[in-house]
């Protein structure tokens, strides 16, 4: 091995290599080895294998850090950094990819758009997410972001014959590319300030400047606009409901957790490390954004009748809550953010899984009324959905409550009382619209008697997400410990 590609570099890169390799292999194999539609299950096996290999890579990194007792492992001259933070997020991404892969097979058959590229794109998007969590260099982060985003543009528009899907993809692409432009403009200014693209060098350069320096502010503002677009914070949220509604539901699920978690990983890296010096500038700005995000997300969700759109607005409001943890900014707050993202991944995925099960050849299954009386037809699904919704609303003893609790605790510890009260009040609003779904499922008479679209993968994914959502709520200790060890630095 040369000095340009050491064993450490390789060790750090393995998960991404596996994801990229298997992603490309899936693309090739669909054409060359398994051209027949009936052979697609072999492709699925390949995807699972790729995720398993990537998981093994992450696991070995985690063990290595633990056994050596070191905090972080840098590679490629500081371009990539594996630390607890990166490993935490990589597990979340892999779990999300795995669950989405499990549920997609049957769903794509129903949609009549079952192609191998889908799985390749999921693996490549996951590869991009890896770089977002692991990268500590502006170029790496930008490339990771774009790799993920490009995959998502295509995935959102995956239903080629469906105009809603086309439109959603186009809107997502236009706004996404626009926001990436702003983000990378901010990155270029940061580079200009530091003379280096390494996050640590940028942090040092900013620390030696006044927080209110206009050039710093320009970098901060453009970067923030780009990042806030990605996490769909108000006022940059307009793309989210459209993209969520138009995309295939499995992709919506992936978009709402994978893309959001990865964007938050990026946001945390950028705001805590290089921009940490300018905290006094961005804290009030982010506070205003967070309040606006919770307000718009929660109030707009109240009137929605399309479940995917409702969940889209709810996920906007969740972004607001996560931002609150960053605003608090103490150890509890960052831990709260990590716990929230972990919990959000499972509960939100779970809710979308139920929506996926509703889709049939003859039924879109996206309207609130399509859920009516679900408990009479499939009580198991209704009860699991109830657990997910309770968790999303933040009612004990579910995981969502623990997550919200940490955010509020951090806010009160850091004397952000007004934000804490606003946050708690919006919980009450959120309960109203989540319980519209509950009401429809449990209290309305059965409307549609057709069977749900289920598969082994879907049931497995539902059980896993359900058990985690309830389990983290009842006995959160191991997961809190995991988040604690993953605190950046």
């Amino acid at each position, binding site marked *: 091995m040369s000095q340009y590609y050491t064993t450490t570099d390789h060790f750090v890169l393995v998960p991404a290599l596996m994801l990229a390799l298997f992603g490309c292999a899936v693309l090739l194999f669909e054409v060359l080895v398994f051209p027949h539609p009936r052979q697609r299950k072999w492709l699925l096996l390949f995807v699972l294998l790729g995720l398993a290999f990537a998981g093994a890579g992450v696991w070995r990194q985690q063990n290595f850090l633990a056994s050596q007792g070191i905090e972080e492992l840098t590679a490629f001259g500081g371009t990539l950094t594996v630390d607890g933070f990166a490993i935490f997020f990589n597990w979340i991404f892999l779990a999300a990819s795995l669950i989405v892969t499990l549920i997609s097979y049957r769903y794509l058959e129903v949609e009549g758009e079952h192609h191998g590229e889908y799985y390749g794109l999921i693996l490549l998007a996951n590869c991009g997410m890896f770089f977002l969590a692991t990268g500590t260099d502006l170029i790496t982060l930008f490339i990771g972001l774009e790799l993920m985003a490009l995959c998502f543009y295509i995935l959102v528009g995956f239903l080629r014959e469906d105009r809603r899907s086309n439109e959603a993809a186009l809107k997502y692409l236009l706004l996404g590319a626009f926001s990436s432009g702003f983000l990378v403009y901010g990155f270029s200014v940061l580079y200009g300030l530091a003379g280096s693209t390494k996050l640590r060098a940028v942090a040092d350069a900013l620390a030696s400047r006044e927080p209110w320096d206009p050039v710093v502010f320009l970098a901060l503002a453009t970067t923030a606009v780009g990042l806030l677009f990605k996490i769909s914070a108000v006022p940059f949220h307009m793309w989210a409901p459209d993209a969520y509604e138009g995309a295939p539901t499995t992709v919506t699920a992936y978009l709402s957790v994978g893309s959001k978690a990865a964007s938050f990983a990026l946001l945390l890296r950028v705001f805590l490390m290089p921009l940490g010096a300018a905290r006094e500038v961005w804290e009030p700005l982010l506070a205003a954004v967070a309040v606006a995000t919770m307000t718009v997300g929660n109030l707009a969700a109240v009137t929605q009748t399309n479940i995917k759109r409702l969940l889209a607005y709810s996920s906007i409001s969740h972004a607001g809550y996560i931002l609150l943890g960053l605003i608090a900014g103490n150890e509890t707050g960052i831990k709260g953010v990590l716990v929230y993202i972990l919990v959000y991944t499972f509960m939100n995925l779970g809710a979308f899984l139920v929506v996926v099960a509703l889709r049939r050849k003859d039924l879109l299954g996206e309207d609130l009324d399509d859920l009516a009386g679900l408990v009479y037809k499939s009580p198991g699904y209704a009860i699991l959905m109830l657990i997910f919704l309770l968790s999303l609303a933040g009612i004990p003893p579910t995981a969502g409550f623990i997550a919200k609790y940490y955010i*509020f605790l951090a806010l009160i510890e850091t004397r952000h009382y007004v934000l804490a009260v606003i946050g708690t009040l919006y919980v009450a609003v959120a309960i109203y619209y989540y319980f519209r779904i509950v*009401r429809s499922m449990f209290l309305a008479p059965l409307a549609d008697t057709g069977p749900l679209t289920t598969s082994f993968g879907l049931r497995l994914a539902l059980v896993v997400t359900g058990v985690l959502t309830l389990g983290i709520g009842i006995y959160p200790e191991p997961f809190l410990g995991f988040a604690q060890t993953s605190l950046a630095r």
Partner: protein
Amino acid sequence: MTLLNLCLALPVAGFLLILAIPKENHRAIRTAALAVSLLVFGLSLGLAVRFDTSLPAYQFVTNVPWIASPAIRYHVGIDGLSLWLVILSTLLTPVGVLVSWRYIDRRVKEFYALLILMESGLIGVFVALDLFLFYVFWEVSLIPMYFLIGVWGHERRIYAAVKFFLFTMAGSVLMLAAIIYLYTQAATFDYPAILSLVAEGRLRFSPLEETLLFLGFFLAFAIKVPLFPLHTWLPDAHVEAPTAGSVILASVMLKMGTYGLLRFSLPLFPSASREHAPWIAVLAIIGIIYGALVAMVQPNMKKLVAYSSVSHLGFVVLGIFSFTQLGLDGAVYQMLNHGISTGALFVLVGFLYERRHSLEIADYGGVATPAPNLAVVFMITTLASIGLPVLNNFVGEYLVLQGTAQVNFRWTVFAAIGIILSACYMLWLYQRAFFGAAPEPVRAHVHDLSPREWSAILPLVVLMVWMGTATQTFLPPIGAANARILEHTRQNVEFHVKQRPPGAASAEVARAR
């Protein structure tokens, strides 16, 4: 495993047991629910037997870690205040099972599963000694009730269920904020620990802080009680709920609010409680009189009983905010009384509904002729409810009135008007429903009490007489617990009660300074 943990865990086990029974087998489900609830009741009686009034501390305590950081513990225990409320919950659950025997004929399995699960949440609220744990139980008990109302209720059930849920949630999220704030100041969620910090003056709040914290808790409790003008969810919830739901809601759930006031608001925020006592007492009195007046004009039996609850709970709040030993004792006694007698009224109204399928008073008349036993039991319950001596409510109301008289005699006068009004609406109801000419449907459908119905109502009737005569069975633990609460409200009262109620120069208040 203490007895108390068994009482908490058994309903959960029963819940799982019921889930395991095939859903067509209604008989087995009902029997299992009854057996589990009776078993829990039996165990809870063991609590009363082994409860030692002379001990000042909490008993049957379990205190184990649950979440490490921040330290949240599974800390439960009971004192004289929670003891009877736990037993009230365990008593009313089998009653709820029995009254639903015929009444619930669809989705039987889910109904009983939820009913039994809710018991655990209710007990948990009364025994939790960790604020975080308390909040968790507080919320957990809500969800089953939402479904009981929403699924098995009458026509406007969904509206009522949502209204019930939103009202209670809106209050409790602010309580959560207050609890977390308390944690950041005290560095613990442990209630006895916080209490001793407050008592020893090591944890001090500025007047503004204490007022806001007090209001955070108070709003959650006041909605639950419900205190006028936050009561509007109650009549809707009661009217739409199935009988068992109404019984549990009125008898146990409303007590969560008054229990919270006594357990948390008064000892933790003594200065703020005293400062705000006057207007709260006024609201309570408005509730007493308003509830009674509105009850009088109700054409619907359940709504009448629901408004009478608003009136009765006004007495409890008034007693609590009199800050006298008698007032507090009366308030707790009245909490139990209301649980028994209003629970019994809802049971009886449920019996009538099962026969005649109507809740309108106008649809009844002359019921005493075809169903004399029912009429007698209803009469006893009515008399208990209006506070006739020898029956239970008299004791509670008397104590409350005497306690208030020590503080402000005008309050006593207005509250007493409420008692007179209660006699009017209850006796008038009785006269319209049970006397006079019996219309054809009443004669055809209304039959007398069956053995199952007897078994549901008889324990309550016995308790009415018992609690009305042998008060010493119940009062000593209550008195001891209340004395400790009052003791806490006298310590470290840092800012003075600015607006003393006119004529409040009683010995009790003076001693508090």
